[in-house]
């Protein structure tokens, strides 16, 4: 009995809590991706690069003497501007063509390729490891956990709740949901659909940038950092249901816990194919995912 409790306390508990930190991080990435898809029907292949850009902006500002906490507020604002411009200047160019699904996917893919090389050019190919803004570790019930990961869980949860409130409890969110449900109806009711589109894209990009700043102290900053994470975020979005916020949160938590717990029994390198396999399974039998998409209940 004692042994079981000890195992739960010293083996499972830290794994679950650490999985939670990773889960929150993945959900932050997935939220922007799923909101953009839910409203614009755009698969943003450059989402990972926006995340990387956020992280690079963060370390650049910190190097200039700006505090990490100011960056957390400043970087999303800058990223929103970049996102808005990207939507107006790129996505809109092919948005009204027949093949827009594929064309927007290809365009954002092209953007991702360019961005990766621009990062290399500007910052070099090697990773930066920013200092943790909250160093040290806390002991909870005999288990040691780094403070910054605990902070990430708290801050990430707050951001997820805030996003949920914006989308479901404000008039701004109502406009977005209306536009997602029926663009023409929303337009005739006076919703500025074009601006809502660009605004939503900007919001998703800002979320990606914010994740970049938040996760940099854990995962380091390097040109291909977006690629590592985007696959996991894609899996979460697909399993949760493309365009569903609730689905992304549930899928994000479940999938990362599956990874964390399975890592106790199989080599952690197999946890990625496990999750991708679940994603393929969902695409096969339930392409709409766990929950319906934005604006559809």
């Amino acid at each position, binding site marked *: 009995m004692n042994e079981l409790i000890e*195992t739960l306390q*010293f*083996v499972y508990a*830290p*794994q679950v809590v*650490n*999985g939670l930190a*990773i889960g929150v991080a993945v959900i932050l990435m997935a939220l922007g991706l799923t909101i953009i898809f839910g409203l614009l029907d755009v698969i943003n292949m450059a989402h990972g690069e926006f995340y990387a850009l956020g992280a690079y902006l963060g370390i650049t500002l910190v190097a200039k003497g700006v505090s990490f906490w100011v960056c957390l507020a400043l970087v999303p604002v800058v990223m929103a501007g970049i996102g808005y411009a990207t939507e107006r200047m790129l996505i809109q160019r092919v948005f009204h063509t027949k093949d827009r699904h594929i064309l927007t996917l290809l365009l954002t893919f092209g953007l991702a390729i360019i961005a990766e090389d621009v990062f290399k050019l500007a910052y*070099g*190919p*090697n*990773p930066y*490891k920013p200092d943790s803004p909250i160093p040290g*570790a806390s*002991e909870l019930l005999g288990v*040691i*956990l*780094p403070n910054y990961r605990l902070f990430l869980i708290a801050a990430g949860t707050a951001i997820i709740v805030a996003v949920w409130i914006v989308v479901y409890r404000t008039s701004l969110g109502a406009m977005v949901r209306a536009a997602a449900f029926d663009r023409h109806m929303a337009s005739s009711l006076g919703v500025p659909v074009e601006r809502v589109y660009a605004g939503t894209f900007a919001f998703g990009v800002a979320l990606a940038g914010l994740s970049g700043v938040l996760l940099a102290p*854990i*995962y*380091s900053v390097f040109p291909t950092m977006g690629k*590592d994470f985007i696959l996991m975020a894609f899996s979460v979005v697909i399993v949760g249901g493309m365009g569903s916020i609730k689905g992304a949160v549930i899928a994000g938590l479940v999938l990362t816990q599956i*990874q*964390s717990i399975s*890592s*106790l029994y199989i*080599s*952690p*390198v197999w*946890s990625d194919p496990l999750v991708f396999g679940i994603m393929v399974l969902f695409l096969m039998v339930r392409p709409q995912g766990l929950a319906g998409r934005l604006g559809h209940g």
Partner: protein
Amino acid sequence: MKRLTIIAAVAAAFAATGAYAQSGPIKIGVVTPLTGTYAGIGQQVKWGIEMAVKEINDKGGILGRKVETIYEDEEANPNVAVQKAEKLFQVSKVDFLTGTVNSGSTLAVGQVAERNARLAATTVSFSDAITGDKCSPNMFRVNAKAGMQSAALAEWMVKEKPNASVYYLGPDYEMGRSTVAAFKAAAEAKGAKSVGEVYAPLDNKDYSPFFGQIRAARPQVLYTSVAGNDTVRFLSQLSEFGLAKQMQIVGAAGSVTAQNMGAIGKAAEGYVTGAAYSGEIDTPANKKFVADFKAAWKADPDLYGVDSYGVMYFYKAAAEKAGTTDTDKLRTAMRGLEWQTPQGKKTMRAGDHQAIQDMYAVKVVNGKFQIISKVPGEAAVGADTCTKF
């Protein structure tokens, strides 16, 4: 028929190529990671080679010819290494190739060297297979292989931590598998108990998912062979999660070196490894080498730096013994060659192209590699298992 004649014509044009220059500068191709997680290792390789080349050229070169180096980025990726090696052999027409770090790259480049009838040497790669079951007549190794490091480390462990339970974490590729297998065999032979092993991808960013299995196994000793920036992240995260002080951490010679010790910081203290080099080796040759290295590059040399410095003198000694840079004559000269390095005298074993050298158990104390015991080269190197030549 038309196509046949074209093939014949073009093939004939090709038969004429293949002869390499025996005058002008001797070209040395260096395929080494200049970017990525092993970039720091590549930096040491480059520093070591540059220093040796400058010394050699200042004293008149090799066989009266100047030495010239051409660098290509390996990215610690065998696929990239092969393409860069082909380019160096076929476009730059280099006489000799060195610098590969990733063991997979070294094995693959050995094959490229065979197909281009040139010689190559590694100064870094650990995998036993390079001079074991996957040996190549065109590949030499001047540094110590995993088996030799393990011999010295296991010797230390049996004294300090008798019958310890050991957990192994290596990088998930040729080198990681080989180093863990070698140390596991050596440790178990001396009474240690293995309680689990796990492999993390090269360039892994977050090791925390791997800690679950380590916590569950509760080892007394943790062996690791991750290297470069991977060690920086692994050891920092181990201590962040409070695991580092619960066990003795030991590992491969390349995991913690002078190159990445600064970035690891306090988490490196107490680390023990079996290595063929320490900056603390107390000989005039090494003292001079360390001083010159520091003067030239404002940094301490590590085992990669010293072995890459040494490989140029290995090539010089062989070329002067053969009197030519012709591949076959050079190979004959390299076999059984004895030459001097800052680590002392090394002997290139003819049977498997593995350099024999003395091994040390070293411990990180106050940021320095303190030598705690020594195993003679002949005892550490083990049997020749290469059967290809």
